[in-house]
């Protein structure tokens, strides 16, 4: 009843091309954003923000980045963790070298640096495809984390080898460092994610996004009708790495506070890939849904035994968690190989014709 688009006539091209052409969708997104900005900081406690919501935002950003590359441009990458590391280390170097630099600007520059690195590691994609490419991007993963470990310049010669975000303020409010409150960090992360997600949505609707999809669907045909594979693929790598770089910067500055290269290891790459695939390839909304799922499930699994009053040894529980997580992923892939985004679409269709079945 509520979800009807009957009577909503488009009278201009602008209205027809709007991101959310249906009024209800528009209101829903506005309401969600308002809720996230105005209500969540007051109702969520420190634990929820730090352990669930901020990681969710960080990983949403990374998942959007990977989704642009894998879901839209069709280039399989297992190097997400490394590009996030580039973002994190670049932020750290920028912030410590230029203490007056605004943190947000530092994030964005770090993203650009990550984009440059992604560009370089995207070059093999011009020659190789599919799983060969995936394995080739693993080179980025191992090489970059080795470099960040071996060259002391990257961690400012600190004896422990960790990078720690110094405290910085924006408009007089502490946003990074140990004294920044979780609420402030949450709001900064939320703003970045909201703005960049909007940008991503617009990129994929436009000329660049369409050329990516053409390359994804059949690269030879796309080349024949005039898309340049080199420009398109490298642009995909650069933009995707930009998002991953910003995600890495957020991970360091707004979530962890201090990190080593282990925080960006191959498991992170796999996690982000899971988010993209379980959420739905080629869908910005799917990136959020996948990120929510993959960050929430481990939290749930860790707390589940206490909820149900089952006592077990911590290491057994850890192993069971891994096992259930793996099984769950296979199960979801079997039930809905196109991810949560597809489920959402089906739900919308059903809502439209409700109460009739067809």
């Amino acid at each position, binding site marked *: 009843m509520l979800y009807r688009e009957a009577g909503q006539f488009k009278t201009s091209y602008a209205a027809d091309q709007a991101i959310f052409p249906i009024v209800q969708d528009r209101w829903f997104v506005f309401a969600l954003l308002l809720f996230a900005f105005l209500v969540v900081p007051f109702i969520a406690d420190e634990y929820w923000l730090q352990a669930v919501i901020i990681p969710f935002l960080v990983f949403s950003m990374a998942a959007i980045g990977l989704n642009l590359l894998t879901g839209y441009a069709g280039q399989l990458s297992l190097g997400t963790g490394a590009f996030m590391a580039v973002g994190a280390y670049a932020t750290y170097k920028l912030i410590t070298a230029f203490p007056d630099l605004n943190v947000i600007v530092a994030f964005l520059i770090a993203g650009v640096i990550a984009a440059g690195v992604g560009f370089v590691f995207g070059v093999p994609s011009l*020659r190789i495809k599919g799983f060969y490419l995936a394995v080739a991007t693993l080179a980025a993963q191992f*090489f970059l984390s080795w470099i960040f470990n071996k060259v002391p310049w990257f961690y400012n010669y600190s004896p422990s080898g960790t990078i720690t975000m110094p405290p910085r303020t924006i408009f007089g409010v502490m946003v990074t460092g140990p004294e920044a409150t979780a609420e402030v960090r949450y709001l900064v992360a939320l703003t970045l994610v909201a703005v960049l997600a909007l940008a991503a949505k617009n990129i994929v609707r436009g000329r660049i996004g369409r050329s990516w999809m053409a390359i994804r669907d059949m690269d030879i045909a796309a080349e024949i009708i005039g898309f340049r594979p080199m420009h398109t693929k490298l642009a995909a790598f650069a933009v995707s790495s930009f998002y991953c770089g910003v995600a890495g910067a957020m991970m360091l500055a707004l979530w962890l506070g201090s990190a080593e290269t282990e925080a960006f290891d191959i498991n992170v790459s796999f996690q982000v890939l899971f988010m993209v695939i379980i959420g739905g390839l080629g869908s910005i909304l799917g990136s959020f849904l996948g990120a929510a799922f993959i960050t929430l499930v481990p939290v749930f699994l860790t707390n589940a035994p206490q909820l149900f009053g089952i006592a077990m040894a911590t290491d057994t529980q850890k192993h*069971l968690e*891994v*096992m259930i997580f*793996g099984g769950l992923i296979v199960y979801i892939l079997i039930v809905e190989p196109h991810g949560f985004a597809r489920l959402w679409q089906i739900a919308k269709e059903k809502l439209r014709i409700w109460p009739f079945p067809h």
Partner: protein
Amino acid sequence: MELLNAVFIAPFVDMWEFPAFFVEVVITGLLTGVMYSLVALGFVLIFKASGVFNFAQGAMVLFAALTLVGLIEKGVPIWLALILTMVVMIALAFAVERLMLRPLVNQDHIILFMATIGLTFFLEGFGETLWGSNVKRLDIGIPNASFEIHGVLLHQFDLFAAATGAVLVAGLAIFFHKTPVGRALRAVADDHQAAMSVGISLKTIWIIVWSVAGIVAMVAGIMWGAKSGVQFSLSLIALKALPVLILGGFTSVPGAIVGGLIIGVGEKVAEIYWGPLVGGAIENWFAYMLALAFLLFRPQGLFGERIIERV
């Protein structure tokens, strides 16, 4: 100038002046390469017959080794434990085919790939829940004495591993080329639809390749486990096998062997002669870089089938 010397001249001078040491390094590399090949073989078998990039191969190695060690610790004699582990791996193949591959038939490759990563997590968790996560010693009674031939130090264990690898590869070659099942496997690898149309059952074939891959994983697990203890890091050698795969080509059994040997030697030589220049530990990424550089010239790998694309 000094840098150029250190990179381009000094290592070769070293090799020339101490040939015995160089040969030793190469042989160590070759033997490590055999171990990589053993893992890579499992990947190739499954990829050839079902087009699935089975990331869980490393977890299967770990799982098989854990099962074997667990059984031996329970007091089961080694030969019986070997047979039981084999039975477990075949049962695993049945379960994977029934519960994972069949519902996912005809899905994108990437979906199947993700499913095998899910399987990886599952097997790692399952194996460690069953048998615990402590490092276990696997003693299968191979003496590890070392001896010298012309000043080159060799380990008996490594030779044994190489021999096992050779036997395994020969066995697989015979299996693939001489038996009816092997012929059916090759037919499926060539063309799924054509194979089905002449009455080859895909399901059976999948169960067979996953079983064979499971047994190969068991052999690899025994070798690695006897060398470095059975522990969680065993599942990480899958990552080492990946560059071997792209170097040799995903679809070629000889490619897996030659690729493994090249990577093994390249890695060891680079680590010993060039590693110290950049602070060592280059073993982690050198294989990938080597494979990557190689791919730029031959995108289908050393022995992979030529990639022909049509619109």
